[in-house]
Each structure stands twice: as C-alpha cells, then as structure tokens.
C-alpha cells in the first residue's frame, strides 16, 4: 500500500488528547453500598445489561470507536493506494544444455542465466508463486510451485549444466499444452517462432545472442588433423529462412580471419579457423555479424514513404504529460524474421534512405580468452543544446552510455559527446538527413521511460521533413555494428506503442528499472482507499454519537 500524502500521518497525534481525555473522565464515582442486590434486581427487571454493554464496557467501546474515528480519518487523509499485485504462477525454466557451459567474460552462460533468474525472483511481487524447472532435452521440475522465494532461489542455485541438447520447439509446445502458468525461459537460444505462437511465453535475453543467432560452442583444437592449432566455432540459428552471417576472428580488434556463412535450411554451422602461427597465445575474440541486417533488402525495408504521426511532443521543459504514440507507423517490408519493430533503428548503408540510425557495439561476441573490458567514466557533454533533437532530453545523472568508436559521417555534427566520442550525431547532406545514436539505450543508463521516447519523437520530427531524400554516407561496416533493440521489458516498447505518462508515478520512473511489462506482475489499476476510509470514519463518528446519546438518555 502506498500513501500519496504520508505527511498527514502527523494527524495521528490527535490520538493523544483523545486518550488523555478518555482517561480523565474514565474513573466513575464510586459509591459503596451494603449490597448491589437491589441494583441488580432493578437492572434485571428493566432488562438493562450491567457489567458489560451499557455500563463500564460501553465507555471502552466508545473510546475505541473514537480512536477508530481518528485513525480512519487520518488514513483517509494520507490517501492510501492499494497496489494490486498479481496472484499468478510463474514457471522459470533454465536451459542447462551444453551450450550454456560456454563462458563469456569469465562467466558461463548458465551462471548468467542463474543470476538473471535470481534477480527475477527478487523482483517478483509477493503473492506470485514460482516453480523452477531445468531443460536439457526434456524439462524437469526441480521446485514445485511455492511462494517461498528462498526455496526458489535455492533450487536455482542447485542447477548445474548437464551437457545434453534438446529440441526447444518441442519443449515449448509441451509446456504450453501442460500449463497455464507464465513461463520465463533463461536460455541462449531464443526461438522467435515460438514466441509468436505462444503469447504468454516470454524470454529473457542475456549475453551471447542477438535474438536469432548464437555461438553455441567454441573449441580450440591445438592438434588438429592438419597438425595446426584451430578454433572450431559452432553457430546456431533458429531462423526458418535464409540467413547469412559473417564470423570474424579478431586479434586486438583486427580481423584476422573472416568467413561468411549461409545457413540455408540447416540451423547449425561449424566453422574452423586456422590460427596464425604467431598468434598461438589465443588472445582475441570471435564475433558474428548478422549479414541480413547489413545487406538484405535494406532500402525497401527502411524507406520512409509514409506519414509518421507524432501525437504529442513536449513543448516545454516543464513536462506534465508526454505521450508518444507511434502506432501508425507502417513498415513497408519487414525483415525476413518478421519481428515487430516499432521505432526503426537503422542500417548504416551507403545511400541510405533510412533516417534514424542506432549504432552501438555488437553484443554477440564470445570471448575465448579474457580481454580487457569496460569503458572509463567520462563526462557527458551536450555540444549543441539548442538542436531540436535534444529538446527536453535529460542527460544529467547518467553514468555510462557505452559509446562505440565511430567515424563521423560527412557533414554530420556532434550533438552530445562523452569525452571525445560522439554520442548523438545529426547531419545533413545533399540528399537527406541522418541521426546517429552511438550508444546502446538498452545497456546504458539513459532514461528509457521519458527521455528515450522523447528523443525518438524529436528525431522523427526532425527527420520527417526530408524523409524521401537519399542520404549518402560512407561505409561504416568496419567500425559499427547493429542489432535490434526491441526489448519489451525494458523500455516499454510493446506491440506498436510507446507510452510515457508522467502523471502516473509508477509509470514515470526515470531510472533504468525493469518494472513494467514483466511476467507474473499483472499491473491492475490501483485502488484509491481514501473515500472508503473517510466514509468509514464518518460512519463510526455517527455510531459513536448515537451510542453516546443513547447512554445519556438511559
């Protein structure tokens, strides 16, 4: 329960005079009589109770009613809101197949999954029952439904990798048929097809995957049949249609080996890279690039040849309510996987017809030897404050935005930078405009609930004037990488709408909190109990008056 005006609890001090006055008047005049026999006889004949209701006890009852009156009226003043949580059952399934044993940044995927699962358990409202299961070809419930979070956490801690593999689609179907619980799956393999089929199944994405393609096995063969040291990389995809990826082997950021892979009808490909003789110490990384995003029909897909209605844009810095609706955005062509994109993030191609560009490091790196990580904290500097894109955007208090090194496009200007690295770039050339977001809104501490949608709205507003023009940019493919950002559980991109409502406190949290749209937390309308308490208070007051008058009359 929340209180809108908790300061009104101070009115509870009114209880002190109520109690004080009560105890002042409580002692009744004591009269000693030879026997109360006659008095009892009288009361009995008059059918009056004595010793209970109607005498001394009535005083106490009146007192309690008075105290209740004060409490209920104060409770009304503090404006209590009953937050209606959920009573749902959630099944947590943790993938324990062989691929989950692979390390990423000194941590196995399973550890990441367990960590995420524990975070999730902590996050769940009390009242939600949790069941834990592991999946390694078939799923096995290791913790039946419980509302004891500690039990669930303990069960999660106990999970170990099994080394088996399994058909995830079948699992999904069987679970879907067997249970009506909300299901959260912690896995490195995300079957989009299942996601579309079974709407109440949600997925938690963690490192090592871009949603469709994942490196599931990485093996260093020091003595290959050819007598050389090789690296074997297994890449899996769940896409049904043609998917081309580029797998690079990098040493110190330089591509040493590169190979394009086409999956075709297969879901798994294994590549073997021969290591250079001078690089035997194996310090480097393997990355995959979704070539679909780079090359596949990009022009048609992101062409803005339609109206983008921006329903509301904040016009002053004093924001009272901001709603950005992009629900009329229509995509001319979709990507082969047909995922729903709401706000477009771009493809940095030569001669782009797309306007919004989101650039940040690719996430599906898998380190096979530890590498240095982290970006030192640098001050975020707003270079071009008056630019319409930055209107009402707040950067204060943001820790990190994780920008990537980027080559500044021709004629583009830096609007915001962190150190020397540009964060937001906007520019024009002869054929059109371009905006580059050189940071990951998902990973960063950028305010996703308010600033991010406003930023997108500003960008669209700014770009739409010249949406049909062609922008020529230099080829950025060697320095920037792309991925989707449609994480519905993070910044509220759900379906085709973005909502920001500052009047609702719960929905206007500007920190990077994963609160809304989470499984098991069915947000219902909060109930304002103010009126209930106030009415109860007045009813009690009336009852007290009647009792008092009744007592006097007697």
């Amino acid at each position, binding site marked *: 329960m929340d209180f809108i005006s908790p300061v009104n609890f101070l009115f509870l001090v009114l209880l002190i005079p109520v109690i004080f006055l009560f105890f002042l008047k409580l002692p009744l*005049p*004591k*009269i*000693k009589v030879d*026997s109360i*026999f006659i*008095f*009892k*006889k*009288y009361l009995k004949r008059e059918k009056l109770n004595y010793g209970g209701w109607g005498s001394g006890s009535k005083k106490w009852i009146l007192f309690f009613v008075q105290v209740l009156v004060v409490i209920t009226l104060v409770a009304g003043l503090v404006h209590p809101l009953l937050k209606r949580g959920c009573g749902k059952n959630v099944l947590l399934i943790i993938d324990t197949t062989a691929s989950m044993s692979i390390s990423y940044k000194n941590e196995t995927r399973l550890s990441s999954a367990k960590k995420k699962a524990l975070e999730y358990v902590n996050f769940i409202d009390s009242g939600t029952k949790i069941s834990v299961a592991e999946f390694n070809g078939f799923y096995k419930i290791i913790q039946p439904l419980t509302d004891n979070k500690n039990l669930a956490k303990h069960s999660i801690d106990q999970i170990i990798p099994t080394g088996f593999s399994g058909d995830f689609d079948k699992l999904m179907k069987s679970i879907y048929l067997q249970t009506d619980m909300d299901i959260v799956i912690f896995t490195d393999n995300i079957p989009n097809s299942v996601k579309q089929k079974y709407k109440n199944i949600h997925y938690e994405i963690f490192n090592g995957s871009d949603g469709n393609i994942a490196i599931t096995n990485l093996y260093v063969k020091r003595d290959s049949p050819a007598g050389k040291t090789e690296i074997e990389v297994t890449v899996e995809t769940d896409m049904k249609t043609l998917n081309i990826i580029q797998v690079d082997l990098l040493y110190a950021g330089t591509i040493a080996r590169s190979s394009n892979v086409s999956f075709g009808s297969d879901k798994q490909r294994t590549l073997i890279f021969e290591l250079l003789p001078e690089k035997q110490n194996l310090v480097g990384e393997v990355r995959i690039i979704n070539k679909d995003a780079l090359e596949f029909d990009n022009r048609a897909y992101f062409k803005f040849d339609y109206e983008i209605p921006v329903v509301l844009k904040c016009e002053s810095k004093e924001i009272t309510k901001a709603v950005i609706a992009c629900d009329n955005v229509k995509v001319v062509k979709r990507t082969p996987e047909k995922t729903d994109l709401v706000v477009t993030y771009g493809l940095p191609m030569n001669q782009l017809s797309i306007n919004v560009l989101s650039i940040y490091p690719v996430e599906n790196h898998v380190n096979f030897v530890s590498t240095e990580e982290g970006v030192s904290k640098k001050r975020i500097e707003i270079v071009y404050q008056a630019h319409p894109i930055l209107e009402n955007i707040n950067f204060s208090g943001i820790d990190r935005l994780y920008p990537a090194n980027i080559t500044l496009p021709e004629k583009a200007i830096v609007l915001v930078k962190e150190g020397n690295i540009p964060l937001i770039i906007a520019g024009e050339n002869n054929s059109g405009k371009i905006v580059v977001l050189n940071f990951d809104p998902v990973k960063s501490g950028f305010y996703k609930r308010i600033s991010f949608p406003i930023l997108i709205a500003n960008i669209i507003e700014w770009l739409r004037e010249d949406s049909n023009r062609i922008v020529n940019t230099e080829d950025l493919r060697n320095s920037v990488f792309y991925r989707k950002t449609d994480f519905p559980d993070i910044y509220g991109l759900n379906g085709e709408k973005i909502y920001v409502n500052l009047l609702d406190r719960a929905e206007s949290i500007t920190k990077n909190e994963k609160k809304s749209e989470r499984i098991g937390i069915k947000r219902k309308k909060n109930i304002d109990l103010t009126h209930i308490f106030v009415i109860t208070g007045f009813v009690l007051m009336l009852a007290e008056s009647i009792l008092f008058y009744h007592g006097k009359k007697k």
Partner: protein
Amino acid sequence: MNHEIDFYDPDFLDKLKDLHIVTRKLFQGRFKGKRRSLKRGLSLEFADYRKYSPGDDFRFVDWNILARLKKIMVRSFWDESNINIILFIDVSKSMCFGDLSKSIYARKVAACLSSVALENHDSVGICLFSDGIARAISPVHGSNNLLKIFAILNSIKTDGKTNIHLSISQYIKTIKDKGIAVVISDLFDSDGYKKSFAELINKGFEVNVIHLKSGNVDYDKISHNVCLEDSETGEYLHADLDSDQVIDEEKKYCNEIRMYCLSNQIAYFPVETSYPFDKFVLDYFKYHITAG
C-alpha cells in the same frame, strides 16, 4: 467486625420484664414453662372431662358430677411447657455496612428476644449464618444461659455472603422441637428467601422475619453513571441508574416480601437501622400481643 454491646441497660430491661412472646399456634415444649402445652397435664387450666378408668388419680374425680349424674368423671387439665425460640441472625458482610450497622441492631434485637424468652422459661436457640452456619447453639432454657447468649452475640464477626436457605435447612435438621423462628436479616440473598421460609413453615415453625434495612446508602449520589461497590462481595457494578427508580425498586422488594409473608402467615417486621431500637422492640411485642 465486632462491637462489644452493653446489653445491660437496666431501664430497658425493666421495660422488658412484663413482656412475653405470644404465639398463634400451640407448641409442645420439652420443659416446663408458662405456655399451654398440647398435652394434658397438671396445670390449673381445665381442659375436659373424661370417664374414669381404673388407675386414675381419685383427686381428679369430679364429685359433683358423680352426685348429680351417678357417673364417675375425671377432670383433665392442660399441661404447661415452654417453647423454642430460634433466632436466625444474618452475619454476612452486608450486615456491618455503615455507621448504623445492621449487625449491631440485629444483635440488640436478638438480645432482647432472648432475654424475654428466657425470662418466660422458653428455650432460645441461636444460629448465626452467612453463606453457611457461622455459629449455632441448640435451644437452651433458664435465665442462667442469658449471659452465654449475650457472649455469643457479642462475639459475632460479619463475613461472607448471604445464603439463608442453606443455613436454615442445616440448622433445623439438628433440632427436634418446633417453635418460633425469628429470622433477622437484610435478606440480600440472590437465591431468594422464599425457599427457606417455606421450609420453616413446612417444619411447623411460626416464622417471624425482621427485615433490617440500612439507612446508610446515600441515594442522592446515585445518578447516571456510577460505580457501585458491594460491601458483601466486593463486586463492582458500573451502571447508569436513577436514584428514584432504585428507591422504588427497594420498596417493591419490601412489598414483595410483605405480600409473601402475609400469604404464608409470616410476621414481617421491616425496620431501618435509623429507627430507635427500643421502640422497635416494643413495637414487635405489641404486634405479638395484638396478634395473639
């Protein structure tokens, strides 16, 4: 509570000299007394004639009848005996309430009755009771026992609740002879008084009830919410009362007792402790004379 009382006020004792307790019924006493007995005996009071039968004393042959009717008739006379006067004195805690204690009043009344009874050769039994028999003596006769009775009355300690029936029924089982039962009590018995009085009547006693009422309760103080403390039980009663209604209730209670006594031929003497004691005693005996 124990207050020594001087029962030897010579002036008052003088007044009592010529008094005696009159009964409506005749009782058969165990000892010789001044009252007519149910049996025939050798008193001066003529009872009847009966035919002579061998062995009869010739002194009782009525020679005049023999001369006139030629029949030998013998005169018989009533016997004279005493009666038992049993004093049931309430010694519950409520009896010692206030300055004008009911207990003292009761003891004085009992002392007077005992004195008169013993003076008239009657036997006096005493039963002090509260929630049971506190102390009891079987009926004694003879003036020499007066001091003993006074000593008992002076040793009264008030304690406990009132349970009239239990005490009376226990006591009357121990005595054989009937007589007058004088109950001196405030009659604050939650179990009621009727049962005990009925038992006395059924046993053949002539019952006198002296209902003592305290003049110490200040009813003016009782208005609306009060906390009443029972001197007998220590119980508290929180009540919303009207003094007039309580007084009415008390009157109703007395009337109820009066009506019950009237219908059962019980002599009922309600008295407040503020009423002069000697006057009440004289009133009591006057009643007996008129009733007799």
